[in-house]
């Protein structure tokens, strides 16, 4: 058990070292010649107009909300999927009802137009 998650921690550390190492190597090798023009953001060569941290479309929030609901649901599906054969018919029906409720929610969001983009 400890060894299992030892590997997870090791790969985390190795991944960080890998990225940091690559960036560090290029730190020593690369030239530095910044200028105000070069350091401005790319906007097809025009002078930048305004910042980009603006309000964005509310649809992204709707998608995120629907996603959270379904993602949590899948979390409940996984333990059931592993042992549903031992759990038998009742558990299967319960899961169908559970999924059915969420599908009803999806249909509601669909009818409300939360899935439309224009």
């Amino acid at each position, binding site marked *: 058990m400890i*060894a*299992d998650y*030892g*590997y*997870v921690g*090791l*790969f*985390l550390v*190795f*991944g*960080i070292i*890998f*990225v940091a190492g*690559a*960036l560090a*190597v*290029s730190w020593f*090798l*690369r030239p*530095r*010649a*910044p200028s*105000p023009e*070069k*350091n401005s*953001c*790319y*906007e097809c060569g025009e002078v930048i107009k305004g*910042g*980009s*941290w603006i309000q*964005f*479309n509310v*649809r*992204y929030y709707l*998608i*995120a909300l*629907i*996603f959270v609901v*379904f*993602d949590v649901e*899948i979390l409940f*599906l*996984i333990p059931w*999927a*592993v*042992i*549903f*054969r031992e759990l038998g018919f009742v558990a*299967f029906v319960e*899961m*169908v009802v559970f*999924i059915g409720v969420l*599908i009803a929610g*999806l249909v509601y969001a*669909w009818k409300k137009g939360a*899935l*439309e*983009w*224009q």
Partner: protein
Amino acid sequence: MIIPVLTLIIMLIVGAVVLGFIAVSAMFLIWWERKVSAHIQTRYGPMRVGWHGALQSVADVIKLLLKENITPSGVDRLSWWLAPFFAVVPVVMVFVCIPFGNIFGIELIARDLNIGILYIMALTSICVLGIFMAGWGSNNKYSLLGGMRSAAQIVSYEIPLVLAMVTAVMFAGSLSMQKIVEAQKGLWFVFQPNMAIAFAIFIIAGTAEVNRTPFDIPEAESELVAGFHTEYSGMKFAMFFLGEYTNMFVISALAATLFLGGWSGPFLPPVIWFLIKTYGLVTFMMWIRWTLPRVRVDQLMGFAWKVLTPVSFANLIVAGWILMK
């Protein structure tokens, strides 16, 4: 005291080997994509550096190492610097439980976690954070649009992707990657009707998950320059590329493991079978990229929520019904 030191040394060797594999595989895939795209378009592609341009990626890495690393004024420094880490580190961590098969009796899997597939699902969904941090941190309109689109797309396609994985878990009755492969010893999962549907869903959603054409709206070159990594240059840009191509490898490796029998196959050693299946699927994704045009945003989101999600739920329930009997 001796044994922990030995274990630690083995762990370090395994980690180093996996990192080496990731780097070489990504470089190979970049060259391979350029060759595949070239031949699909009746060109030669890279030919100058090495045999048929085989060393082109090495030359590119050296070039990127020596490039100036421009940090535009006005970036959000924390997310700007962290984004390349979030693009690469989770993908590296996924390799803990990718079953490469075995060679000379040695199991080629870093650790067969008993929650393997759940662990992979959790980590692959972190990648969206890196992309969104890059898009937000750049303080560039194209990057922000690319990051937003990418986040919406990845979370939408994650539902069908994970549902297809859950269908495989139902057939295998285990979350461990090795047990899932062993459950397919007799017959690959893809030959069962439900799993064939799940495989198709997995490939479609997986292509969207790694932002590839026809779902490459986040980086649509003709409208968004390069999407979320427009402002990145030098080695940070290379990190995003590495993450993207390794992600492609991971999605293909998962598809091979869950649906195509993983490393099992006749005559050849298991690891060869695994690599054939995985790189075959990667090549298939490249073939799709150079064949199909890009879809629109509304088509993309509509397809995920109105077609793929209901179909994968229905598929899951039917699979459960069949397995119950």
